[in-house]
């Protein structure tokens, strides 16, 4: 096994008493002494700081210096509308294979900084990034270039109701950003790319800074009483309660964005079945009323239903499988997501979860389990 990589904040995690685990090729903090449950609740009540530097950051730009050329090129490999992105705007999308299966999910931004508005900035999952970068390289035409920034940029996330106040203390302009927009500005004396987004369901920011600046920025944020370091364990329970997909669990090459309930991320004029890799599958799954769907599942009782738990109908027929499941600290009980046959995808459908050989009743529910608190101005 190859040696685990470390983010620039590795020493800080260890000094904070983190339990480190291998994740996507990196040695990452799964929890700190506070513990997963308290870290989760702290993020929902105040503000959590996450090291997400293991994720892949890259830029795409065209030799002709136009946004249009770069956007058109990227649109051949993602279902999202990229050409209509305004400077400083951000969209969630996916890379698909030729069959429309999901290779990865990602954030795509058009830089807002004057002189750079022709450039696209992408953040992809750590576990997929090498394949993603190869996939992008393979499909970009001559004259459109990929620039990978893992060697120069770190990424942190500040999430929770106090995030705007805390980050606003370093530059009040971040409070003007609305959800899914971003800007470049100084935080104190550190130059940063700040986006109002995240993966916890809470208001908050993702902040990209140079490797050499990340330690000092984290120190400034942690100096605030409301900020705690939060590990991958709570990151997982937070995103599950927020009904957000985790690549490799809720989504992978075996499902399409439509089956995964991500149709909202495919703009209407991109649903016609052509124009990008996997487009035919998108159109087919929209038309096919029998295809499966990812749904929220609320187990009755207190037993969590974990990933790979079989889902049955009332007659004992297998109708799907749990893809993410556990305990939701803010819900105060078990929560799960999984795929079910389309006719069971309606909210309040009654299903059974086969946990340790016993059928346990559960209901299909609307996602998210905990309301999103994104700041929309």
């Amino acid at each position, binding site marked *: 096994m190859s040696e685990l990589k470390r983010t620039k904040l590795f020493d800080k995690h260890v000094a904070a008493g983190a339990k480190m685990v291998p994740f996507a090729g990196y040695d990452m903090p*799964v*929890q700190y002494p506070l*513990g*997963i*449950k*308290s870290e*989760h609740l702290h993020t929902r009540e105040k503000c959590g700081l996450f090291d997400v530097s293991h994720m892949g950051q890259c830029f795409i730009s065209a030799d002709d210096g136009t946004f249009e050329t770069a956007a058109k090129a990227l649109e051949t490999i993602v279902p999202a509308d990229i050409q209509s992105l305004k400077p400083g705007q951000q969209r969630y999308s996916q890379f698909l294979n030729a069959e429309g299966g999901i290779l990865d999910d990602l954030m795509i931004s058009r830089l807002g900084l004057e002189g750079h508005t022709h450039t696209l900035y992408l953040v992809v999952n750590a576990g997929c990034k090498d394949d993603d970068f190869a996939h992008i390289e393979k499909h970009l035409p001559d004259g459109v270039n990929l620039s990978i920034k893992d060697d120069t940029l770190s990424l942190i996330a500040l999430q929770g109701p106090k995030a705007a106040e805390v980050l606003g203390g370093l530059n009040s302009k971040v409070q003007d950003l609305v959800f899914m927009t971003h800007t470049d500005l100084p935080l104190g004396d550190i130059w940063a790319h700040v986006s109002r987004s995240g993966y916890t369901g809470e208001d908050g920011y993702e902040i990209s800074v140079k490797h050499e600046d990340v330690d000092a920025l984290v120190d400034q944020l942690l100096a605030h009483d409301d900020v705690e370091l939060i590990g991958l*364990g*709570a990151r*997982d*329970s937070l995103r599950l309660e927020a009904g957000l997909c985790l690549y490799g669990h809720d989504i992978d090459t075996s499902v399409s964005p439509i089956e995964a309930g991500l149709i909202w991320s495919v703009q209407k004029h991109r649903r016609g079945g052509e124009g990008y890799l996997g487009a035919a599958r998108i159109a087919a799954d929209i038309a096919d009323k029998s295809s499966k769907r990812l749904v929220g599942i609320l187990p009755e009782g*207190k*037993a*969590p239903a*974990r990933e790979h738990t079989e889902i049955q109908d009332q007659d004992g027929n297998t109708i799907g499988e749990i893809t993410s499941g*556990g*305990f939701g*600290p803010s819900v105060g009980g*078990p929560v799960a997501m999984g795929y079910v046959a389309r006719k069971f995808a309606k909210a309040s459908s009654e299903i059974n979860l086969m946990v*340790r050989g016993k059928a346990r009743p559960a209901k299909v529910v609307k996602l998210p389990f905990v309301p999103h608190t994104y700041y929309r101005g």
Partner: protein
Amino acid sequence: MSTYYTEDHEWISVDGDTGTVGISVYAAKQLGDVVYVELPDVGKSLDKGDEAAVVESVKAASEVYAPVGGEVTAINEALEDAPDTVNASAEGDGWFLKIKISDAGELGSLMDSDKYKAYCDGL
């Protein structure tokens, strides 16, 4: 009353032919926040090493095995509403179940608290 430990971090406290079973302080600390405990039915007969209970943290589910064989005579119903008692008092109020020990000889293969402490230090 003597307490014995298994390599899987269960403890059993023996009083006559009744054993009280739970998971060790070390195990509770490793698991983190306990959110659910599934206990067997009273009257269930367990062989040594059988799955006796399941303890779940936010992250994962772990099996709890019977340290010795016997019949389940009581379960700690308080854990249903307060599973975090396992974190607060793993070797006290956070007990899981009581069994009527069928063969006291099986206790001989378990560790006493000194041996168990040395075992944990070596992990």
